[in-house]
């Protein structure tokens, strides 16, 4: 599996560290909303198909990446810098 780092180009998956479901939204640190914290820490979308996820190029430039990858075929569909951390587009 190759992941194309925006800085370093296509690299082997062993250079990257998986950081999981990129759909999760981290509550504000002072938030006391237990449901939101529970959802952030424990709940996962886990789709069979396209999956929005976070990887770090830990064996390279160390940038955090937002990757869309198909969990049925392992095909990497897009990669981009993960600006904005775990907060995903399209999920309030």
């Amino acid at each position, binding site marked *: 599996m190759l992941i194309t780092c925006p800085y370093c180009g296509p690299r082997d998956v062993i250079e990257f560290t998986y950081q999981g479901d990129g759909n999760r939204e981290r509550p504000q640190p002072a938030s006391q909303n237990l449901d939101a914290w529970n959802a952030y820490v*424990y709940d996962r979308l886990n789709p069979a198909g396209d999956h929005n996820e976070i990887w770090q190029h830990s064996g390279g430039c160390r940038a955090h990446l937002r990757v869309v990858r198909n969990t049925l075929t392992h095909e990497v569909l897009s990669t981009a810098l993960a600006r904005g951390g775990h907060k995903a587009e399209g999920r309030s």
Partner: protein
Amino acid sequence: MAEYSALSLLKNALTGNKDWKPAWRKPDPKASYDVIVIGGGGHGLSTAYYLAKEHGITNVAVLEKGWLGSGNVGRNTTAVRSNYLLPQNTRFYEHSMKLWENLSHDLNYNVMFSQRGCLNLAHTPAQLDDYARRGNAMRHLGVDAELMSVDQIKRLVPALDVSGSARFPVLGGLMQPRAGSARHDAVAWGYARGADRRGVDIIENCEVTGFLRDGGRITGVLTTRGEIRAKKVALAVAGSTGRVMQLAGISHMPIESHVLQAFVSESLKPIIDTILTFGMGHFYISQSDKGGLVYGGDLDGYNSYAQRGSLPIVDEVMSEMLALFPGLARVRMLRSWGGLCDMTMDGSPIITAGPLPGMYLNCGWCYGGFKATPASGWCFAHTIAKDEPHEFNAPFTLDRFYRGLIIDDKGQGATPRLH
């Protein structure tokens, strides 16, 4: 007379083996059942078996999307053990161990359960201390555990590199002598036959495509073989849990599906007569009755439904094997494959009523599902029949994460790929 016995073997041998009945029927689905179990793997079949045997509930269908036992019950590395640290896990898996010890007799089907022991190797003094602690925790709950010295390990596994010059020298190990392995296909077939003979319909090539509802209540399933109604619908679909729950409208679960690979070597003369685990990585190995080394290591480490892995883990697993057994460097690998693991956020399973009315959920087996097969079905059947959990599965709820009652044996936190 039991269906399979020395006498029946002899009788059928003399009459040309023409009178054996198929081990299970191939019925068409009825319009409705008392209980539908989704998933014809080890856990689904054992659930149906214990529903019939322990609770007298025989109007049951097991729905399997492929052929019987085509999922994880035929893809695992067959280890059976109960060497956990936390009491919730120890009690559950020790109950499973006791069911394993009588399973061939109970099913009248030889599952070839072989109690050859499971030895966890320690490579640092701290790890050995940790094993002593876990061994004491096990013994405290009546489970067998023995701390072994390097000399004892050397006698038990002569092929193992126990020299001081090994990449990670062995300092000792924790042995559970009653642990062992079983023939996984026989487990599926034995439970299937046992359930079938008690009246359970096992329906293969029947994929669930949706759920029937009455208000909020689940009242049956839509399948590729039509609509089937049931008072109770029980899920035992392991790696496909996320997918099936999404059919029921539940998009988020405390589960990620990952791929785990397993490997078999060419057949060798007997060389390892126990199950051995490496302490400086994640690697486990045993030898099958046919002589093949059966081994595996870590998950590939990312969400996957592909049932196949990638090469970096193959490389890592082989490296770990050679760190323990340099003498196996020229042995050829015969087969490798991948299975889906439903990894929970604390590494422990979920066996519970709910989360929707009329639904029952059995999932989250991470990569420890095979050894749990008897107790999982036994506890799930109890939960379905009585609408409340048995004390052995009472801790394995779905809401334990929200309530802060996680059961994290390895203390890894909510990072499923590390459990």
